[in-house]
């Protein structure tokens, strides 16, 4: 039996009016939905950013208020803080949807789950990674970083956080069925994120010293591209397993 028998000719009209392929259209709709949901809860939206600001404040208090010393550790501080705050929002990346059954509907929609979850990960990056990239220079300035380093910091955090969101999405999907998964999620995600930390901190360090940071930035971009190609597949597989 063809679906068209069942619903008459109206389906032809529907598919005819579609500009993108169905999978991409579905992914776009998922992205829009997640952004809309996030803006309904603005309080939660700013939490990773506030966390980022607090962590960077801890270091001058713990180490020394001298800007010359802080400048030396600034790349590490910025990247560890960025890593931890992108981790913070991950736990809820798929969890809410799994609880209310909407994730199940995604898995059963007949659309590619890989694309739908990739769209959710993109939403996560837009809501945490991108704001972090904007925040990082401000935090950097407070650590004595010269203004000339700002483009390098923004670029490296923006690119690196793409890889972080993707790695994190795999971890979030794997721990979907685990109650109170926060610590486990960090245990799974952080070792995988270490290359991102290494290249990101190096790019930031070179930017602060006024050097050429293109090499580590390209390595970061390579990690992000690798993440974009592989991570959504693993995420979709993990979500299917945990919906079983």
């Amino acid at each position: 039996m063809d679906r068209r028998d069942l619903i008459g000719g109206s389906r032809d009209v529907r598919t005819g009016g579609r500009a993108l392929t169905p999978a991409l259209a579905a992914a776009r709709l998922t992205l829009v939905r997640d952004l809309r949901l996030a803006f309904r809860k603005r309080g939660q939206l700013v939490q990773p950013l506030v966390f980022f600001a607090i962590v960077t404040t801890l270091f001058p208090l713990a180490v020394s208020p001298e800007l010359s010393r802080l400048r030396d550790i600034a790349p590490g501080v910025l990247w560890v803080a960025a890593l931890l705050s992108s981790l913070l929002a991950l736990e809820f990346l798929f969890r809410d949807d799994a609880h209310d059954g909407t994730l199940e509907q995604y898995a059963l929609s007949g659309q590619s789950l890989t694309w739908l979850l990739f769209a959710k990960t993109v939403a996560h990056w837009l809501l945490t990674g991108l704001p972090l990239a904007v925040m990082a220079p401000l935090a950097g300035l407070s650590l004595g970083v010269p203004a000339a380093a700002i483009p390098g910091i923004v670029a490296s955090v923006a690119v690196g956080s793409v890889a972080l969101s993707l790695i994190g999405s795999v971890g979030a999907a794997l721990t979907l069925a685990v109650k109170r998964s926060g610590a486990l999620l960090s245990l799974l995600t952080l070792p995988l994120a270490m290359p991102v930390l290494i290249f990101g901190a190096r790019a930031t360090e070179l930017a602060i010293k006024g050097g050429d940071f293109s090499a580590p930035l390209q390595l970061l971009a390579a990690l992000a591209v690798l993440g974009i190609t592989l991570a959504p597949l693993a995420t979709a597989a993990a979500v299917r397993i945990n919906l079983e």
Partner: protein
Amino acid sequence: MASWTWFHRLGSPPYIYSLAARLTPWFAWPAAALILGGLYGGLVLAPPDYQQGDGFRIIYVHAPSAWMSLMVYMTMAISAGVGLIWRMKVAHAVAASCAPIGASFTFCALVTGSLWGQPMWGTFWEWDPRLTSELILLFLYLGYMGLRSAMEDVQRADRSSAVLAVVGIVNVPIIHYSVTWWKSLHQAPSVMKLARPAMPPSMLIPLLMMLLGFTLFFVAVLLVRLRGEVLSRERSASWIREAVSP
């Protein structure tokens, strides 16, 4: 189809249980002989290193452990992948049995590495790229075991941890190269290297014996653990009573 029967038999828990029991001594005894021989050759017969004196002898434990830590991870990831693709329960049981063994080898490599470093560096821990990679590998093992233990349902634990193992194996080379790259920026290459071409046979042969011995030892331990794993998974099956009671 006939050529596939071995594959199907490998998927059968009772067959695997008895096969593992029969195979264990074939690996355990050669492993013991090779390790004892290698230790004698390495600790007694081999001459001291011209730079590091007797301190280098820890390589006979360190290098095979470090080698095994990666080998076991690969075995784990491959069997997890097989389990994931062909839905083979026994493959998942193999992967589950690998993890604690691999973590122990990794831990052993870390401890011997820092003991070796002590006379060289004057501290027990140095952020040497190999030790750092080993440490991250230990975290990967711990994450794998943590994920398994967090899930009550065995099937879900099997399949979730399999995805993690496969993701991990893609990341292991990336982590290794990024750590090497990271260290090359900050310091000259590691001291934990012996001049390879200059290694005389009296040093090399015991090392190779230890490598082979550790590998066989791993297989023997894996078989024993696999039997335990199969027992606990099939505890309600009827063949277990017959297999265990005599």
